[in-house]
């Protein structure tokens, strides 16, 4: 910035200046071509290819930690729920509940393109869904029946059968007496029925709780739950249907749940915040630029450089990675915000430089400083690229590319776009820039050391109190009404949690089922302690072949022996030995082994399809996998006990999606913290090369501001999250720029540097700091860090400005 050439180049018109101008024009045109290509590529990506960013947060894990089968299992669970809307309409009187439900459905049916009511069990009621089990009656027993068969005497069994035979209403029985004389099959079906409290009633699905009868309505969303246009149509439709139901039955309780409700609440919050926070920051920045430059051109130019930065980053990152994660876009785009400094720096320098010096010459003078700023940021972010996390690598590459493209835009275009007469200084800009002279300066004397000691102590106290939190649940803020409905619905329907389950794997389907059975045995203890109410598993319906054959042998050995209970029954009803023989044959005929795939494909298996992953993995390592879902879990502190029931050696794995995502956030926070420290270190080394012993002056402002901000979080008890650390990285990027600006050797240069700092800091406060007002916890965390940190950097940085000489060339001073 202080190259001797600066002062001489100002005389202009020298031949090297001309060739420079020609080369500059050629480069500017070349850059125009590059930008056109970028625009074209982005248009192709988003409009033609309809590229969409990854949203799965587990995709951010290193691939060695990433488990494809587990991923598939989760997608299986989520997909089965995502496109559903579940509604419960309850009334003390069942008739009123059905009337309300009919009114509700009538409204929904008018919009078949949005929501379609699912047939529910009505089809099952008519279709003979038990047919798939009928041929295997002899192979199916409940655990209670097994123990009864082992303990009860033949006499007890014959009496039971006779009771069933004579009873007018001997409990539930299926078909003729002679097909199920001991009621075993009925009992097994009864046990299966108890896996859900939902029952068909009058052609509807019915749940009873707390003296209310509920109609269960299941609806399929016809468009993506995350489509904002679908949300804007579906939510009013549901509200309208709810009103219709209330009209039919004023006391009806309506409970609604579905992913779309959460998604809609999220986008609604985001869009209303966008409107207020976004408008606030835009107005603020425009006003700021207007007051400083009396022109809107600067803001347009700053926006242009950042926009080209983002476009370039998008294009090249997509080409490099073949995909991008949503998180990359969010943070990458915000880190590209550092690029504003290049544009603002150039603009302020232009404002503070004599009109005789043309913009190209000015650029040559600014180039070393600009290069140092870019280099510092690039080196800082490269640390992130060295971590094993694909998301961090993407973010680093995205940010570096974005900065590079924005920087090149400033270098190649701004001299041509901005001339000495483009900008006019305003009294406000003058006053601001002159205030640097009166700003206190940090001196390495007794008072300075005392101040440093006090700060060190306070910061140490604050930092020691700093806690961390990586809990994903702390990052969500869902309206309480939705959470209440969700909890109520979960209790009423006894649904399993979709985020926690067991993943069972094996070499064959049979092995998977056997492992499920072993797992269920281990879970009996927890069911007994009422930690969970039960499990949903395919093996409940289709036991392993080993179990099926064991059950058949058990029945044959206890009930079907020639002298067993059948003989006693025959004696009681006066039938001959032939009858016993016929009955034995008749019952033994229902011994066809039941196979999981056949069950899954049958209508009876339809509700359980999400539990069976079937064949997975590559051809050379075929594996089978299934999900065992946990019902009635309400105390989440007991999760470790459930995890302990999984025995990984036996192919059973406890999957806790919530914990997994929290783990991702934890790793990212840790690695990001190391990347931040590494960035401070490398940037400091770089600055040392240029500023020698004064390098600490440039790095002190962001470092002190960051320490103070973190200490403040420690003192106020706000736990540290990934999003705070990411903001700290941005703070470093901007803060180092300010440090570099303010090492200018002359008062006059420091004045426009100070103006640059002010503009940049206020823009950053307006664009990032205002996010502190957001209701979304991650944005709030990010924004609050930026708000406090930026304000501090802004205020601290002039205290560490380099010692400036008051000399200035008279011909450079503005007229």
């Amino acid at each position: 910035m202080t190259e001797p050439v600066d002062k001489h180049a100002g005389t202009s018109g020298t031949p090297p200046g001309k060739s420079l101008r020609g080369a500059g024009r050629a480069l500017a045109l070349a850059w125009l071509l590059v930008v056109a290509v970028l625009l074209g590529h982005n248009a192709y990506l988003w409009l033609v290819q309809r590229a969409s960013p990854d949203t799965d947060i587990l995709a951010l894990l290193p691939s060695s930690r990433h488990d494809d089968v587990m991923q598939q299992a989760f997608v299986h669970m989520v997909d089965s729920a995502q496109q559903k809307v579940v509604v419960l309409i309850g009334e003390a009187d069942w008739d009123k509940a059905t009337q309300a439900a009919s009114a509700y459905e009538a409204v929904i049916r008018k919009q078949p393109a949005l929501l379609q009511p699912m047939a529910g069990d009505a089809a099952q009621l008519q279709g003979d869904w038990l047919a798939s089990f009928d041929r295997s009656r002899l192979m199916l027993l409940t655990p209670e029946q097994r123990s009864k068969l082992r303990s009860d005497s033949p006499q007890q069994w014959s009496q039971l059968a006779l009771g069933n035979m004579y009873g007018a209403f001997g409990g539930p029985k299926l078909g003729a007496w002679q097909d199920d004389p001991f009621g075993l099959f009925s009992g097994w079906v009864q046990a299966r029925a108890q896996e859900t409290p939902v029952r068909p009633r009058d052609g509807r699905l019915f749940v009873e709780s707390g003296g209310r009868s509920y109609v269960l309505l299941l609806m399929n969303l016809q468009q993506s739950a995350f489509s904002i246009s679908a949300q804007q149509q579906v939510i009013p439709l549901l509200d309208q249907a709810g009103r219709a139901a209330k009209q039919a039955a004023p006391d009806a309780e309506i409970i609604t749940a579905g992913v779309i409700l959460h998604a809609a609440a999220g986008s609604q919050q985001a869009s209303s915040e966008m409107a207020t926070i976004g408008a606030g920051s835009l107005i603020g920045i425009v006003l700021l630029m207007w007051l400083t430059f009396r022109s809107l051109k600067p803001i347009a130019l700053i926006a242009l450089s950042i926009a080209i930065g983002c476009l370039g980053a998008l294009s090249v990152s997509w080409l490099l990675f073949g995909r991008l994660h949503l998180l990359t876009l969010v943070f990458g785009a915000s880190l590209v915000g550092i690029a504003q400094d290049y544009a603002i720096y150039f603009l302020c320098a232009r404002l503070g430089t004599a009109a005789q010096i043309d913009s190209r010459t000015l650029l040559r003078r600014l180039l070393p400083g600009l290069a140092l700023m870019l280099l510092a940021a690039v080196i800082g972010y490269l640390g992130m690229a060295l971590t094993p996390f694909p998301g961090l690598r993407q973010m680093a590459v995205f940010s570096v590319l974005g900065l590079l493209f924005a920087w090149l835009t400033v270098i190649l275009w701004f001299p041509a776009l901005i001339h000495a007469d483009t900008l006019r200084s305003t009294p406000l800009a003058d006053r601001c820039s002159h205030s640097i002279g009166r700003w206190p300066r940090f001196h390495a004397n007794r008072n300075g050391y005392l101040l440093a000691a006090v700060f060190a102590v306070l910061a140490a106290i604050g930092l020691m109190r700093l806690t961390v939190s990586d809990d994903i649940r702390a990052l969500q803020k869902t309206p309480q009404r939705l959470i209440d409905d969700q909890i109520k619905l979960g209790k009423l329907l006894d649904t399993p949690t979709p985020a926690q389950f067991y993943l069972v794997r094996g070499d064959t389907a049979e092995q998977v089922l056997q492992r499920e059975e072993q797992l269920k045995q281990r879970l009996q203890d927890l069911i007994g302690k009422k930690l969970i109410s039960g499990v949903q598993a395919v093996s409940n319906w289709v036991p392993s072949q080993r179990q099926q054959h064991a059950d058949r042998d058990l029945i044959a050995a206890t009930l079907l022996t020639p002298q067993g209970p059948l003989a006693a029954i025959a004696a009681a009803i006066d039938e001959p030995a032939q009858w016993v023989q016929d009955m034995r044959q008749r019952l033994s005929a229902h011994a066809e082994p039941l196979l999981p795939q056949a069950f899954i494909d049958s209508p009876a298996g339809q509700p359980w399809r999400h539990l069976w992953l079937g064949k997975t993995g590559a051809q050379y390592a075929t594996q089978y996998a299934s999900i065992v879902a946990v019902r009635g879990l309400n105390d989440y502190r007991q999760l470790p006990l459930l995890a302990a029931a999984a025995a990984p050696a036996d192919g059973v794995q406890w999957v806790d999606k919530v914990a997994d995502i929290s783990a991702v956030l934890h790793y990212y926070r840790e690695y990001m913290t190391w990347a931040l420290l590494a960035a401070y270190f490398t940037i400091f080394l770089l600055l040392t090369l240029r500023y020698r012993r004064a390098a600490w002056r440039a790095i002190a402002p962001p470092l002190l501001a960051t320490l103070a901000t973190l200490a403040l979080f420690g003192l106020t008890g706000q736990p540290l999250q990934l999003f705070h650390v990411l903001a700290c990285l941005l703070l470093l990027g901007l803060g180092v720029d300010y440090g570099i600006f303010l090492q200018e050797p002359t008062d006059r240069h420091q004045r426009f540097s100070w103006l640059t700092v002010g503009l940049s800091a206020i823009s950053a406060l307006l664009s990032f700091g205002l996010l502190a007002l957001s209701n979304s916890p991650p944005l709030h965390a990010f924004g609050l860090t930026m708000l406090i940190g930026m304000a501090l950097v802004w205020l601290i940085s002039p205290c560490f400005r380099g010692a400036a000489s008051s000399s200035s060339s008279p011909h450079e001073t503005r007229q």
Partner: protein
Amino acid sequence: MTMTLRKLAACAAFFAVFTAANTVAEAAAPVAQIQAALTKPAVMCGRFDQTKQLTGIKKPLLSNGRFCVAAGKGILWQTLQPFPSTLRITRNAIVQMQNGRVAMRLDAQQEPVVKMINNVLFSLLAGDLSQLDKLFELDGAIKNGNWNVALKAREPGLAKAIGDIRLEGAAFVNKVIMQEASGDHTEIVFSAIQTGDKAMTAEEGAMFD
């Protein structure tokens, strides 16, 4: 699950008709007359004689015993011959006792259909037959105070599971005939019907508590 329901719903419907087939609100005119012909006691007890003809068994199965129906409480079905067994249906559970042991038990908490059956049953005992009308098509005839009603389930699935039910009676239900699709056939004849507070013994009353 659905089969279980069908059976239980069928039982419920049967009891409903049997105990209080007296208030068919919106049914055909003969049904309304039948309803008028029936008395509506709070407690009713009597003897039953049951004849069952099961497929695969040559001889008819004969049994008899005592039954009680108490409005607001439930139903007690005590088989005495050829061997004792008791079936009790209340708000909270359906329990079958045999030789002092619980042979079968369905709790309302575990099996919501139990509550549903009871709800249907008790609403019917209170004289609201709209529930029954919803499940069955009622077709009746009455002549000189003697009547009969044929019940056909509206849902094809239900109809297939329970088959046809036929009721005969005068001031009370005298006879129930059930013909199941599986071929099993049941006929129950009621006699010696008593009503009023003294109809039920103290022991029977205690079984409802």
